[in-house]
């Protein structure tokens, strides 16, 4: 697939071309303009999920180009980059949410605990139960708060009795630090909560099926600073149990919540590294430009 591709990003030619032997990845088929490898440390030892040479196409347009990245167990990895750089598209390919979009095609491999989720025998139902998702805009169902959280356990048959289901709902709401605010109004519609509460409800709904990985697609972009701070605290607590990949527009947020940061630019994964290192000593000029606010 790499033979005839055209990259419309002259910047990449200017700085790209990092020697790739350190990475140990098969890239022999790259053509000259795309002969570019991610800077930094895309791979870790305790990988929960590993993406290898992931390409995403919207019709003819190639939105993601040969992205390879590991997501370590119980870490929070932040994906940053200017609008349209493909970070959300990449995130959505991790639980095959891109399958919903008819013109979207994914090429490459994504492994969850060593198993390829794009292999023919894989089932998106089970995959998405293990890799949950929280979206940009809070999207609770127009059902009661209780029913919102109980939705996942019900469809996956996780509770065998009403008491068990009650317990799951309470536990999930507690973990999403929403329980104290809603415990008396569980039968009220979830759409009646405030924006920040709705987003925590969506997080509770996602963790109610005990996923292993939670993907968050700009979860705070529709929230005010106080609600954002609560979600960030929550992410900090959740990483004890879950592996979290978060896409964000806010560099401060990435710096606050994540251990590793990945910088995307025009569909390419430019640089990955420990958050502290990426923000203090970015190795790549594009990363540095973005972080210092020269574009983006």
């Amino acid at each position, binding site marked *: 697939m790499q033979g005839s591709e055209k990259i419309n990003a002259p910047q990449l030619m200017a700085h790209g071309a990092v020697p790739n032997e350190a990475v140990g990845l098969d890239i022999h088929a790259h053509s000259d303009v795309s002969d570019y490898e991610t800077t930094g440390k895309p791979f870790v030892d305790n990988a929960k999920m590993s993406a290898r040479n992931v390409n995403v196409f919207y019709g003819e347009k190639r939105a993601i180009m040969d992205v390879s990245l590991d997501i370590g167990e119980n870490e929070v990895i932040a994906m940053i980059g200017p609008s349209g750089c493909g970070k959300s598209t990449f995130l959505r390919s991790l*639980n095959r*949410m891109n399958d*919903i979009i*008819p013109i979207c095609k994914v090429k490459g491999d994504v492994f969850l605990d060593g198993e390829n989720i794009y292999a023919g025998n894989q089932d*998106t*139902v*089970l*995959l*998405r*139960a293990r890799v*949950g*998702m929280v*979206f940009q*805009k809070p*999207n*609770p*169902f*127009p*059902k009661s708060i209780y029913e919102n959280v109980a*939705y*996942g356990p019900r*469809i*996956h048959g996780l509770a065998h009795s009403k008491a068990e289901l009650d317990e799951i709902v309470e536990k999930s709401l507690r973990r999403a630090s929403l329980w104290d605010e809603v415990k008396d109004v569980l039968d009220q519609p979830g*759409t009646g909560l405030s924006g920040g509460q709705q987003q925590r409800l*969506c997080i509770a*709904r*996602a963790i109610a*099926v005990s996923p292993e990985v939670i993907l968050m697609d700009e979860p705070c972009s529709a929230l005010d600073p106080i609600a954002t701070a609560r979600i960030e605290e929550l992410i900090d607590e959740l990483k004890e149990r879950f592996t979290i990949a978060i896409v964000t527009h806010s560099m401060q947020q990435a710096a606050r919540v994540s251990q590793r940061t990945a910088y995307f630019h025009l569909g390419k994964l430019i640089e990955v590294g420990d958050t502290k290192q990426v923000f203090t000593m970015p190795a790549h000029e594009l990363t540095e430009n973005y972080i210092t606010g020269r574009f983006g």
Partner: protein
Amino acid sequence: MAGGGLGSLNSLPKHYGYMAALWAGLPAFFLFLAWLALEGHYIQSMVVGSLPAEIQAMSDDEIGLYYNQLVGYAQGSVDRSMLNEDQIAAANNYQQLVAKGQAMKFLLVGSLAVLGGMLATIRVSPELRARNHVENIFKWILFSCSFIAVLTTLGIVLSVLFEAIRFFQVITISDFLLGLQWSPQMAIRADQVGASGSFGFVPLLVGTLLISFVAMFIAVPIGLMSAIYLSEYASRRFRAITKPVLEILAGVPTVVYGFFAALTVAPFIRDLGESLGLTVASESALAAGLVMGIMIIPFVMSLSDDIISAVPDSMREASLGMGATMNETIRKVLMPAALPGIVGGILLAVSRAIGETMIVVMAAGLSAKLTVNPLEAVTTITVQIVTLLVGDQEFDSPKTLAAFALGLVLFFVTLSLNVIALYVVRKYREQYD
């Protein structure tokens, strides 16, 4: 224009032009309309006023006939031999009046147009807010158009209402609404045999509801399921082809459905029933309802499709992202969210089924039997209205007036269904906006 050029004008040059044109055109146009409306009456009263006294002493109907004859002669469609001297004199008078009126009409309308145009032109100045003026005039033109629509509706309702009141002076409302027998043949002569009309409306209502029920039984599941398929599963190409095709189905004239029902479906159902040992009337409620259902499918489908598609994608993503299947997402998220809207759409479809005429005229029977067996022939409100008004009728007999009473009831039934449907649909809309 003191020094400012075009920029010193309050409005664009064209607005001044529009204003002058509207001032010239509109008053003259209204004068013309008023003239047309009043001219006939005026000339008639002038001509009749000049007739001899003994003729003026006749009844209004006779004067009308007399006058129509001389007008006919004046216009050349009635032969001279049918008229007397007085009439011929009056006819000449009439011709003169018409010619004078014609001349005056053009003179007045023309001068009003010129006057209006001049007035507007004189008023033109840089300060004149011609743009706002023109906007205002257009607003009033649009308003009066919508007002005409409202007035017409009101007029129809009132005329039906008054005729229905005349009917209820002969037949009591309780006899009509609660009576179990419908046979509207009334004796025209006192000695006529076997014709004591009875106007019990219940069998018609039951027949109408029975056929509508059969229709909805067909249309709702098929329409709803195909809407779900189209909005959630179908590829863009399939959708692009299927939707217009189904909308063509909605464009087939109902009379075509009618003879399809009468000539194809009804005999088929009768033969099928007979082969199963059932007695099926050749004009069964089942056949009419079945075809009516087919007619309504595109209606239900199109409405439901719009409503299901209106459920935000974020709901689908939320559910699919939890690992729900498409089926679970549809049943547990999309349907509950879309249900009020779908119910509203179905109610609209029911009111269409109840008001549908051509199919039932051709495929349902005429005998007003009180039954809920879809294999028997029943009749509907609309069929009875048609049969009551077709042919030579006296317009003051209860038999004919009954049609207006039926029309009134039908109007109220469909109106209330529409009101409920609109209420439900609006309530649904509030959820996501």
